[in-house]
């Protein structure tokens, strides 16, 4: 017997509070596509993707209808391409990227992730070639997403890779200057990247995964915000309970969708990613959740504490709702994809430094932040190094996705459209870190005893 109030609560969450499943992402291993001939490799990859994911979009659409819940994105993640590229040079890697893009178009999916390399300790020739190819690959494809893992808690930080990625970001911006540097919106630099992340731009199908898997990312910032506003003037213990209960309900939808997709596609269910993923739509903002707790504007004093509590309560509520939790699991704080963050950045309340502090207590990192077009590669590397250090020391995933908007200065608007949204160019501290970045080598892995 289903209670009338429960039915109406669910309907209201979907109708008024933007409840949706953010993504159903199929992870596909490409190990069995390997060939020493790039053209053969590309055709193997295309065929494998077309056979593995041919029913992904139609199945997800059927599930949307069955449960009346929007599934915003249907995506595919693949084995990090640097693992399967073999002897390909940068041109060969671009060919692979175009193959991925063609498959994504033909499958009707929204994004394909895994144009990736993991170089936290060292760089293979394949990873080197892939990283060289990233700007061109992102400029010449539409749906391919790229990520590079440059640090981890166990390996430390590969500062040569950090220096390199500063230059890659600049080059990606230059090659897509006519499209507001959209290339940079599809490129993430990680610490402690995870194998089963369903969210873009950082999704890839990790080395320990099976041949094919279904991962689901949930969402629901609007639902959490409204629940907090309804709870009124309560103390933090009560507030945490309200968030936990809401996160439980949101995650159960994700679990249900993951289970059904896995059953219908005949592919094992991997994980549900317990994330609060905002969109630029009004009423779908993580910043507005923080403001609903009593902050005048996101970015002011109290923001980090509010986010820490939110992030923890979301995980506590979500964990019980799902049999397998993984991915990035936490509140996302992208600037351009969150109406509240955009407003806070525009009014000057939210700064790059505050965002960095916030990333220490939530998922994932400095995300979708537009910075002045004349920011140097070394400064971008410095921003990356700081963020990766937070991930390394705190044993968590952190990431950087910044967009040095060509020809634009502080306060000017950069427009990406769709879920990627728009953002004002934010101020970057102009003090130089050139000598620091030029040192190269590796920052040793941190000690994880002597905790005081």
């Amino acid at each position, binding site marked *: 017997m*289903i*209670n*009338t109030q*429960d*039915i*109406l*609560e*669910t*309907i*209201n969450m*979907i*109708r*008024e509070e933007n409840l949706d499943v953010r993504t159903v992402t199929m992870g596909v291993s490409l190990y069995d596509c390997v060939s020493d001939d790039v053209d053969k490799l590309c055709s193997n990859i295309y065929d494998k993707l077309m056979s593995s994911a041919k029913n992904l979009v139609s199945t997800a*659409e*059927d599930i949307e*209808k*069955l*449960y*009346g*819940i929007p599934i915003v994105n249907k995506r595919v993640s693949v084995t990090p391409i640097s693992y399967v590229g073999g002897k390909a040079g940068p041109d060969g890697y671009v060919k692979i990227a175009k193959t991925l893009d063609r498959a994504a178009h033909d499958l009707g999916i929204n994004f394909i992730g895994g144009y990736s390399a993991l170089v936290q300790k060292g760089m293979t020739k394949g990873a080197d070639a892939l990283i060289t190819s990233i700007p061109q690959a992102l400029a010449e494809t539409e749906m391919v997403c790229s990520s590079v893992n440059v640090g981890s808690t166990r390996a430390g930080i590969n500062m040569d890779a950090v220096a390199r990625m500063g230059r890659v970001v600049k080059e990606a911006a230059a090659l897509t200057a006519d499209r507001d540097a959209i290339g940079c919106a599809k490129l993430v630099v990680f610490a402690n990247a995870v194998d089963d992340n369903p969210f873009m731009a950082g999704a890839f199908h990790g080395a320990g995964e099976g041949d094919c898997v279904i991962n689901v990312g949930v969402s629901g910032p609007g639902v959490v915000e409204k629940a907090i506003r309804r709870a009124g003037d309560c103390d933090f213990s009560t507030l945490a309970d309200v968030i936990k209960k809401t996160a439980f*309900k949101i995650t*159960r*939808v994700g*679990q*249900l969708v993951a289970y059904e997709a896995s059953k219908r596609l005949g592919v094992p269910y991997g994980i549900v990613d317990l994330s609060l993923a905002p969109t630029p739509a009004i009423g779908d903002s993580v910043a507005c959740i923080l403001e609903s707790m009593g902050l005048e504007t996101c970015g002011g004093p109290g923001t980090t504490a509010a986010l820490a509590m939110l992030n923890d309560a979301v995980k506590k509520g979500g964990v019980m709702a799902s049999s397998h939790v993984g991915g990035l699991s936490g509140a996302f704080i992208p600037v351009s994809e969150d109406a509240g963050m955009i407003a806070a950045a525009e009014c000057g309340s939210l700064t790059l430094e505050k965002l960095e502090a916030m990333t220490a207590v939530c998922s994932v990192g400095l995300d979708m932040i537009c910075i002045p077009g004349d920011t140097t590669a070394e400064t971008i590397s410095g921003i990356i190094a700081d963020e990766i250090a937070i991930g390394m020391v705190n044993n968590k995933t952190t990431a950087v996705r910044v967009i040095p908007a060509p020809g634009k200065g502080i306060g000017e608007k950069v427009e990406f459209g769709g879920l990627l949204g728009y953002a004002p160019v934010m101020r970057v501290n102009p003090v130089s870190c050139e000598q620091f970045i030029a040192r190269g080598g590796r920052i040793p892995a941190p000690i994880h005893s002597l905790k005081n």
Partner: protein
Amino acid sequence: MKAVITVIGKDQVGIIATVSAKCAQFGANITEITQSVLDKYFAMIMIADISALEGDFAKFADELKALGEKSGLDIRCMHEDIFDAMHKI
């Protein structure tokens, strides 16, 4: 196996008849009807047994939705599992 059909909008003559006719067309047996209010809107909730549904669930849901759009109503047809998942431990 049950579907939950919700009709939200301004109350108007013939809502139950229209939705019931569509259910009958698809072989969905209405077992329960309740009325409530969602914000300022009229909300009717029908529970239908869809064990013997003739045709595709997605088509059934699509046609109900289209029916609603014609009369300025928001009609949703959802499998009961989503409500169980969200509200039962």
